[in-house]
């Protein structure tokens, strides 16, 4: 059975960036929240906050280094700064400012990178990030969250604001099908088992969660029972959910919209290696940049599909 990219029509549901923007505007009733923008607020949806709370909104311009430094200073005054830009420009342009002015002094700054992954489509690889989760995880003390859909992106936005400490929230451009209902529980660092199963576990985050659910459905037609774990928090990772998966199923597939190095797959592998041998397989972009193209074409081209997850599950289960 082939699912192609069936459920990932990228037309239904809400984009995680839009859900973040709506949740952030709601959180604006907290007078401590200030929002900083690198002049992309109509793309990141921080415009919603800007329209409601213009006095606490700062468009710092196309200058990400200064953007992050200013946010660090506001955090030093006890404010709760949320900095948003394209993930590529925020993390890659301002990497050292995040390191020196946010991570090292442990400032309570929330960084929200949108247009992450390759599913942004036609704008091409300069605007995409295949490496942002690795970069965010590289900062000691950072929390790194990759929500699966609109409802969980909204919940993650509120959760990160309530949690003290520097955080990176990764959002995407396209609409994604809902995995959750609005109001479903979301706890930072606590994975959600969104489908039970006892043959194989698919650990996924971001748009790969919906694909993993499709893959699990497909695998069930082959008599394979697949568990799907939404590992929305890459750091700190939910070690107990992983140990449970490794103990209770025969292998683990990790699926992410990210390059092979330094992301969810690497983190899961490192965690499970401590426990002992686990059969594993990985679905990711590999060690490459993408190209321009339609989002669904790119996902197909770079191997981010339910079919690819099903293949990986079969590999894991092969004697």
């Amino acid at each position: 059975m082939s699912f192609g990219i069936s459920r990932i029509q990228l037309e239904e549901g809400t984009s995680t960036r839009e859900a973040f923007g709506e949740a952030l505007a709601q959180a604006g009733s907290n007078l401590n929240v200030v929002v900083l923008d690198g002049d992309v607020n109509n793309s990141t949806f921080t415009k919603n906050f800007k329209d409601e709370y213009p006095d606490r909104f700062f468009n710092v311009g196309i200058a990400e280094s200064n953007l992050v430094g200013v946010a660090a200073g506001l955090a030093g005054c006890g404010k709760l700064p949320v900095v948003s830009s394209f993930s590529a420009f925020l993390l890659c342009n301002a990497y050292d400012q995040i390191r020196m002015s946010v991570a090292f002094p442990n400032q309570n700054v929330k960084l929200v990178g949108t247009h992450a992954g390759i599913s942004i489509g036609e704008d091409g690889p300069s605007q995409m990030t295949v490496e942002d989760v690795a970069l965010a995880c590289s900062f000691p003390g950072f929390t790194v969250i990759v929500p699966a859909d609109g409802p969980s992106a909204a919940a993650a936005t509120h959760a990160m604001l309530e949690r003290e400490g520097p955080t990176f929230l990764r959002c995407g451009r396209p609409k994604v099908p809902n995995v959750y209902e609005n109001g479903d529980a979301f706890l930072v660092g606590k994975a959600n088992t969104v489908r039970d199963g006892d043959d194989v576990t698919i650990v996924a985050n971001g748009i790969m969660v919906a694909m993993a659910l499709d893959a699990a459905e497909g695998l069930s037609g082959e008599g394979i029972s697949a568990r799907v774990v939404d590992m929305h928090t890459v750091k700190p990772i939910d070690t107990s959910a992983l140990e449970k998966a490794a103990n209770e199923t025969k292998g683990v597939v990790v699926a992410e919209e990210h390059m092979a190095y330094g992301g969810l797959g690497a983190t899961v592998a490192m965690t499970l290696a401590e426990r002992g041998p686990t059969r594993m397989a990985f679905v990711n972009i590999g060690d490459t940049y993408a190209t321009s193209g339609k989002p669904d074409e790119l996902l197909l081209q770079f191997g981010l599909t339910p079919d690819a997850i099903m293949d990986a599950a079969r590999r894991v289960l092969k004697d």
Partner: protein
Amino acid sequence: MPKARTEDAAELERITRTLRRDIVIATSAAASGHPSTSLSMVEVVSILFFGGVLRYDPKDPHNRERDRFILSKGHGAPGLYAVLAEAGYFPADDLTTLRRLGSPLEGHPNMCRLPGVEASTGSLGQGLSVGIGHALGASIDELDYRVYVMVGDGESEQGQIWEAAMYAGNHSLDNLTLIIDRNGYQQTDSVKNIQSLDPLDKKLEAFGWAVRDIDGHSLDEVRAAFEWAQSITGSPQAIIANTVKGKGVSLLESDPAKWHGKPVPEEDKDRALEEIGA
């Protein structure tokens, strides 16, 4: 919020000698560190902390109404520590723990470990942006504190300084004062030879700053410059403090490129302290 203010010129001069002595002794004890970039900033920080400019309380270092001093040129840490000790943030005896394991007086300032340090710095170019954040915080909270940021002239080769300068100028942040400790040298050569900033005053003016050029070792000129800065409304202010790298220690002054990041050798220490006169 109190100000430590002394009008007594002799007392201020005594303070500058104490800071210079502490800088030389601490870096020599550590056998590493940057005394020369610390020595060039002494008069500026002396007036800032003891000449009635900065409002601060070492017993209440996080008071939200305090004025802020951010040392962006983080390798000037020995100078910052000397002035913080003199101000009473910690005992002066601790200065000789500089750079030692367990000491909060790290090689470059760490705000999480030492009260009075407003920003962790050391990767150059970042302090002015952090200062802008604090300056914006004052307007959000309707507080009247002021923010002082010191950068080096070599540090001003960093692009982020100019991103920040453009923002502060465009947004008329008049509670923000930038001090450029223009000691003329960076690690391997003079700033002029590597990446000249000239005309620095005109560049800053073009970015919307009020600018004043002073002798950064004249206590009178430094005091007058801070009084001038406080009187300016509608734009941020930049004080270009023309200084000498290694000021007060002839050995360090003699070859600034050679002595960047090097303490006074043990055999030259007594002579250096004699020259300082403390």
